[in-house]
């Protein structure tokens, strides 16, 4: 059996696994139209980025070591790392919300630009990966400022994609009398 043929078996098994995963009930309920207003009116965590970056600067706590309070410095840094981890959770939740909104928009849009959708899928993957790396860096006590900036850039990119999509939808809203429904649940009728 050649390698190419042998690969068919794990590929088929992988398809069965993916099938089982894809037919599971969804973990989160999609956004009903009116709730998008509420979600958008929530306070954004991105605005606290500069405080977090500042708090993670080693220089910010260096004076404690000079004053002979090494233990206090370590405790303070550990506290700040914990706060940064919580901030990261919030940032990730905010990104997920943006993704949810963009999904709802894509479902409503009479036309979806494939390249932008693919970019968003890629962005989503990269964001999740960067968050995981950043989380480990924080846990190991490494300096994560660069990672935070990268993640913030992704959020910015995400917002730009959404803005373009909304503009297209708004243009279509002027001409189309009716719109398809918001999907309210991945598996109706169960």
């Amino acid at each position, binding site marked *: *059996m050649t390698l190419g*043929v*042998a690969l*068919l*078996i794990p*590929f*088929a*098994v992988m*398809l*069965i696994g*993916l*099938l089982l995963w*894809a*037919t599971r009930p*969804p973990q989160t309920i*999609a956004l009903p*139209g009116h709730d998008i207003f509420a979600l*958008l009116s929530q306070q954004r965590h*991105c*605005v606290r980025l*500069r405080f977090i*970056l*500042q708090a993670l*600067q080693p*220089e*910010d706590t260096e004076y404690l070591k000079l004053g002979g309070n090494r233990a206090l410095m370590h405790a303070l840094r550990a506290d700040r790392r914990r706060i940064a981890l919580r901030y990261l959770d919030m940032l990730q939740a905010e990104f997920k919300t943006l993704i949810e909104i963009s*999904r709802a928009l*894509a*479902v*409503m*849009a*009479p*036309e*979806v630009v*494939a390249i932008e959708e693919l970019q968003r*899928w890629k962005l989503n993957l990269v964001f999740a990966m960067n968050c995981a790396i950043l989380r480990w860096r924080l846990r190991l006590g490494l300096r994560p*400022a660069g990672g935070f*900036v990268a993640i*913030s850039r992704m959020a*910015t990119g995400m*917002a730009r994609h*959404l*803005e373009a999509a*909304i*503009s297209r*939808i*708004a243009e279509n*809203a002027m001409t*189309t009398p*009716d*719109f*398809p*429904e*918001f*999907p309210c*649940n*991945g*598996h*109706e*009728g169960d």
Partner: protein
Amino acid sequence: MSEFLSLLDITWAGTTTLEFALLASLVWRKACRTYPFFALYVASTILQSAALFVLYRKPGLAAPTVWTIAWGTQGVVTVTRSLALIELARKVLARYTGIWALARRIVLWVGAGVVAYGLALSKGQYQWMVMGGVRGLELAMAAVIVTMLLFARYYRVPVKPFARAIAVGLCLYSSFYVVDYTLLKHVLQRYAEFWNFLGIMTFLASLLIWLHASGRYSFQEEESLPAAISPEIYGALSSEINLRLYLLNRQLERLMQMKERRP
């Protein structure tokens, strides 16, 4: 071996009975109007069973002739299954014009890629090439179904229970067919009867899934049209989202431009 062949005959008979039951259920519950190609596919499997029953018991036919006719019927079944799959994809995604346009392209690329891969692996005598080609098609169908379901899951598109049951049944059968055939050809050819038996059992499982779904779920909901959002709500919604995103974008851009500084 004769006992095993009897078992094979029994499962074959059981499968044909279930095929009849499923078709009767689809006709009785008027699902043929909602899923005409799926009903056609079920009917084609019944006709194939009948044709093979007659073919294998007809004396005096040369083996190559039997082989050609048998695989010819398989070709017809594969075509009707492909049509059922296209129908299914349309049912699930076509109402959402934006993502349907994208899904259609991706699914076509995935399908074509997998078929090409399968055909590239089909070498040797022409019989093996035909069988390898069918394997490639089966794998492509499984890949297309999984891609479609992943797509629906990502965009939170509702998949109706009967449509989901069709997808699961088709995909399970196609995936197991690929595994069965690949192992049969390269590893376990001397256990061909056993692998045929497993193949029939897999199809039996798919039939049971479809029969259960056809008896349980309503087909009326399949035809229900999506409730439209009024243009006023929609316009207000998009304006609000636009504004919020613009503000968020501005905030982030200002943050990005800000230099880190010590207090």
